[in-house]
């Protein structure tokens, strides 16, 4: 929970990479994904709710203003609360490979976090397309999603390292089998 809230703060300092199709590091999503694979389902769902709720508070747009007689076709934006469901779906995806993570193979989780971020962005794009109509998928949009997923995924080992450190500090096991832990410590 502390890490999720810290991620929201750090996210404010992370600008878009204008040279890479306005891609960015989605730290909040990454922290959630890494945390989702280390906790049980109820805690994952609680984190999904908190992350989705705060993320929508961060990014939801105001409704269209102006005279409805002039602006007859208002452009819809994403509804507040949709991210909660997307975070939940991503969390379930990550928990699908929890057995591998428990065997100490965190690399699969890191790779899956990149895939999950891409799917998250694709889902957001499809929802926008659905509510606004007219399917327009430009090369720039695909590259933006791909670069964002890649940049975010590259930071996943750091987040896992922080999670391991926090669990050690709290003397809490995040379910790595003893033989793997011994091998890591050696």
């Amino acid at each position: 929970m502390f890490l999720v809230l810290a991620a929201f703060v750090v996210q404010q300092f992370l600008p878009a990479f204008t040279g890479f199709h306005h891609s960015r590091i989605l730290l909040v999503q990454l922290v959630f994904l890494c945390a989702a694979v280390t906790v049980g389902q109820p805690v994952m769902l609680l984190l999904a709710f908190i992350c989705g709720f705060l993320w929508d508070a961060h990014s939801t747009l105001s409704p269209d203003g102006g005279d409805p007689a002039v602006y007859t076709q208002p452009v819809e934006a994403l509804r507040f609360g949709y991210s909660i469901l997307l975070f939940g779906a991503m969390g379930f995806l990550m928990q699908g490979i929890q057995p591998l993570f428990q065997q100490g193979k965190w690399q699969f989780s890191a790779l899956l976090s990149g895939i999950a971020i891409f799917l998250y962005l694709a889902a957001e794009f499809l929802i926008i397309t659905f509510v606004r109509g007219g399917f327009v998928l430009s090369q720039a949009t695909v590259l933006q999603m791909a670069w964002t997923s890649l940049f975010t995924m590259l930071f996943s080992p750091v987040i896992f390292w922080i999670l391991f450190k926090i669990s050690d500090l709290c003397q809490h096991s995040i379910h790595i089998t003893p033989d793997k832990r011994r091998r890591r410590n050696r």
Partner: protein
Amino acid sequence: MKPFNLIAFLLFLAGAVWALTRSEPTVREIQKAYFSAVSPFLKSGSALETRARTFLDEVRHSKELEAELEVVSGEVGRLRIIETRIRDLEKENAQMRHALEFKKATQFDVVAALVTRRQPTTWWQTAEIDAGQERGIGTQFPVLSNEGLVGKIDWTDKGRSSVLLLTDEKCQVSAKVEGTPEVGILSGQRGQFMGKPLLRLKFLSKNAELRPGQRVFTTGRGGIFQPNILLGTIESVEKGAMDSEALVRPSVNFADLGTVFVVLARES
């Protein structure tokens, strides 16, 4: 599924439905609380971004900036003269309206603000400025630069505001084409954010006679934007079976937004 997990899942779904069914005012309140909480970090983040951008710009364009500064200084002088003239005309106009027994004479004033962050979210074309409610800014207020219309205020806090840029699909403006009777709705296009994106002017007449280079201005209809603000120039026209659409190159260089002006609608 374990009973405890099932209960957690049902609670999660109930929470999601609760969030999805919040009314707009409630969402605004939630956002207000959120931005109040992260405001100190937003300021630091913006300052960091501004410093980094300024440093890079200085390194790359120090000579260009000097030359630009000279041009801008000259332009400021010229604009001051124009502004004085406009103020005189505005005064004269107000007096004439009064003379014509209009109940209210409307005046407009602006607040200058610096762009501190660009595109803080993934999909929306927005920018943040360092002026907010403290300086009389409210939601839906138009934002201009010396090149033309930049967008409108999306949300505002005590000392900060977010601007929904004209390049966003959601920012719609009632527009007219100079020298023609053509009137339509101008907005940004989805997935265009590199360089100078093109805008789309919709709902023009089927046989709209437009030429590339013709200027597009606000009509003043719709209750948000004042009339005769420059939006851009016609790039090309696409004729359809029912109506025509035009692609418009914005007059504002959105990649290089520095100082903007928020128009305060003030009744006198």
